[in-house]
C-alpha cells in the first residue's frame, strides 16, 4: 500500500522527487579533488566534492585564499581548467603562480555586482568542463540579498556538473544549499628575525573546522575540528 502510494506520488511529482524518494540507498558516489594536505583530505573523505557546493569561510588572514589557491594548483596540475569569479577583485596572479596555479588554465572573471557574480558562476557551471569554479565574495556581507533562492539554484547547477564549486566568504552565506562548510581561524603567526635586519613574516597556522557536512563523511560530530593547516610564505 505504502509502496503504491509512493509510486503514485512519484508519477505525479516526477523528477527530482523520484530521485530522492526511490534511490535513497543507491546514491551515486561523490568524486573528489584532493588538496594534497593529508590530514585535511582524510577529514574531507578524499578531498573537495565534485558536483557539490562547498564553502570556505573565515575572518581576514585566516588562510581561506591560500586554501583556494591550493585547490586551483592541484586542479591545474592535473590539466583541469579553473575559474575564479572574483567579486572582491582580490586575485593576485603573482601569489597564485607562486602557489603553483597554472595561470594559462585559469579564467579570471571580475563581475560588477553580486547578482552578476552569481549569474557568471551559473554560466560557468552550465558550460561544463571546469575542474573548479570559485566565487570570491570578499569581505562584504551579502547574505540578506542572496537569500531569495540564488544559492539553491546554484547548487542545482553544480549538481549537473563534475565541478568543485566553492564559495569564499567571511561567513557562511549559502545556508542549506552547500554540502560542505569549512571554517578557518588563524592561530599562531610566525615571524623570523634576521641578525641585523628586519623581521620577516613567515606565515601562520590556521585551524580548520568542518562546520557543515552533507556528504556522509564519518565524523563524531558535525562541528568536529579537523585540525591545523600550516600556511607558509615559502
Amino acid at each position, binding site marked *: 500500500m505504502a509502496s503504491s502510494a509512493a509510486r503514485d506520488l512519484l508519477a505525479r511529482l516526477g523528477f527530482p522527487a523520484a530521485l530522492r524518494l526511490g534511490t535513497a540507498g543507491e546514491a551515486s558516489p561523490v568524486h573528489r579533488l584532493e588538496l*594534497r*594536505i*593529508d590530514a585535511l583530505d582524510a577529514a574531507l573523505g578524499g578531498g573537495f566534492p565534485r558536483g557539490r557546493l562547498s564553502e570556505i569561510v573565515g*575572518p*581576514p*588572514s585566516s*588562510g581561506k*585564499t*591560500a586554501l*583556494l*589557491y*591550493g585547490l586551483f*594548483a*592541484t586542479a*591545474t*596540475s*592535473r*590539466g583541469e*581548467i579553473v575559474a575564479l569569479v572574483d567579486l572582491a*577583485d*582580490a*586575485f*593576485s*596572479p*603573482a*601569489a597564485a*603562480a*607562486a*602557489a*603553483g*596555479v*597554472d*595561470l*594559462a588554465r*585559469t*579564467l*579570471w*572573471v*571580475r*563581475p*560588477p555586482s553580486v547578482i*552578476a557574480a552569481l549569474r*557568471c558562476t551559473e*554560466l560557468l557551471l*552550465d*558550460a*561544463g*568542463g*571546469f575542474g573548479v569554479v570559485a566565487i570570491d565574495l570578499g569581505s562584504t556581507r551579502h547574505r540578506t540579498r542572496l537569500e531569495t533562492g540564488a544559492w539553491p539554484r546554484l547548487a542545482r547547477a553544480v549538481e549537473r556538473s563534475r565541478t568543485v564549486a566553492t564559495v569564499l566568504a567571511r561567513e557562511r552565506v549559502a545556508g542549506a544549499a552547500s554540502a560542505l562548510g569549512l571554517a578557518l581561524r*588563524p592561530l599562531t*603567526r610566525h615571524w623570523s628575525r634576521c641578525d641585523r635586519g*628586519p*623581521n*620577516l*613574516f613567515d*606565515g*601562520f597556522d590556521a585551524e580548520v573546522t568542518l562546520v557543515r557536512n552533507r556528504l556522509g563523511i564519518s565524523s563524531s560530530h558535525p562541528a568536529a575540528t579537523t585540525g591545523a*593547516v600550516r*600556511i*607558509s610564505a615559502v
Partner: protein
Amino acid sequence: MSTRAIRIACILVPNFPIAALYRVEPALREVPLALIDSPGPRALIVAVSEAAARRGVRPGLTATQGSAICTALALRPMPGARPHPSGPGPHAPPADGGADYRRAAQAALCEVATSCSPRIEDPHDETGNGYGLVYLDARGVPFPSEQALGAALGARAAHVGLEARVGIASTKTTARLAALTSSGVTVVPPGADRRFLAPLPIGILEPDPERAAALIRWGIARIGELACLSPAAAGQRLGATGAALVRRARGEDDSPLVPRPLPLVFEEEIDLDYGIDTLEPLGFVLRGCFDRLITRLELRALACGGLRLSLRLTTQEWEERTVAVAAPTTDVKVLLTLVRLHLESHPPAAPVEAIRAAALPAHVRAAQLDLYRPAGPAPERLATTLARLSAICGSERVGRPAIVGSHRPEAIALMPFDPISPPPSSPAAAPEGSCRLALRAVRPPRPVEVFDTRGEPDFVRGDGFGGRVVALAGPWRLAGEWWTTDGFARDYYDVSLSDGGVYRVYRDRRTAAWFVEGEYD
C-alpha cells in the same frame, strides 16, 4: 557522387530584388509589393511581387497608377535607383544611396553554394547584372545523387531566406534554363542537354529584338528548331551574336565555369522607414541583421569574432562602432547583449535611420582531446560562455591572468582565455602538506591612516579594518620606473594588527602617504 564529366549546378532566385527584400523584411510577404525607381508620385514601378502581379500591377506603371489599382500596394525603392543626399561616408559608404539588400542576398546565395562545393562562380557585376544567380561545380561533392545535391542547395537557400530553384546540367546555359523553366530541382542527365532545350521557346535565350524578329520571320519558335541551324550559316546572316545564339541553343557554352574564391565578407544592411531613437526597437532590427549574419557564418563553418556597426543618423552622418567579442560565437543573444551594452554606454548622437552590420569571421577552434588529461569545456560552448561573461562584466574584465614584466607590484594583465592551446608555462610546484601564503590584492592600493613612531607604523586605520600594530616586518624598499613621470619609490611593511589581520602596507616616499596593498590570507 563522383563523375569525370563536367556537371554544373545553377542556383537561381526568381524575381531577385523582391526576394532579397523579403529576406530583410519578411513581413512584406503578406502584402502586394512593388519596387519603384525613385521616390515621389511619378516614380516608375520596376519590379512587382507575385501578389501585386495577381492584382494587375505590372512594371512600367507609375507608383500612383499602381496604388490606384491596388490600394494595399506597398512601395519600396529599388536599390541603386535612388540618389542619396549624404556624401561618401566612412567605411564602405553606399555608392548608390540606400541599403542595397541585394548585395547581402547575393553573398548569402554564394555562401549556400560554397557550403556544397568549393568551386563556385558568382556572375554578378558592379552594374547589378547577374544578381540571383550562382553556378557551382557539381562534380565530386559529398551527396549521393545530383537530385540530393539540388535538394540540399534549395533547402540551404531557404535557410538563408531565399526561395531558390536549382538546375543541374552539363553546361551553364542548360543548368540556368533548367532552373528558370521549372520549380524545385531539375536535373538534366549527361548528354541530354539538347533534348531538354528543344521544346523551350527561343525567347528564353533572350535574343536581342532584331534577331528575335529575324527568327520569327524564319518561322523559328523553339530552341530545338534553332539548334538545327549551322552556327556558321547563322553567323553569316545574324552576325556573331546569332552564331552564339545557335551554340547556346545546342547546349554549348561560350565560356566555361570560372570559379573564384569567395571573399570572407559578411555584411548586412537595412534602411529604416524612420529614425529610431530608443534601444528596444533598434535591438529588434539588429536581431534580424545578426540572425542573417550568423546563418551565413554557419554556412561557412565560422563564428563571429567581432562586430562593426555603421549607423546612419538622421543628420545624414555615419557613426562607426566596433564591438569586441571575447571569443568567437554564433549566439545571436550574446551579440545583441554586447551591442546593447555598447550602445547604452555610447549612445548615438541622433536617431538611427540605417544600419550596416559587419561580422568579423573567426574560426571556432576544435579541441584535441588528451588521453591522460580531463576534457575541458567544449570549444564552442566555452566561446559562447566567454562572450556572455563579457557581456555581463565587460570584455576587459574576463580573461586569463598574466604576470607583467614589471617591478610594480600591482601590475597585472588580462589575456584572451584560450585553454585549448595554453601557452607553455612552468608553474611552481604546488607544495604538498601545506598551503602557500597568499596575498589578497587591494586594487588599486587604498590610502590608510598610519600613526608611526620613529618612522615605523604603530597604528593603522583603513576602510573596514584597523588596529594597533602588534607585530611587523620590514621595511624593504622598492623603487622603479624613475625615468618616467609615473615612477614609484616605496617602503613596504607587513603589519599584524590587533583586529587579527595581517596586511601589506607601504609608504610612498614621494608623497609620504601610506597605502594598503593587500591582505595576507
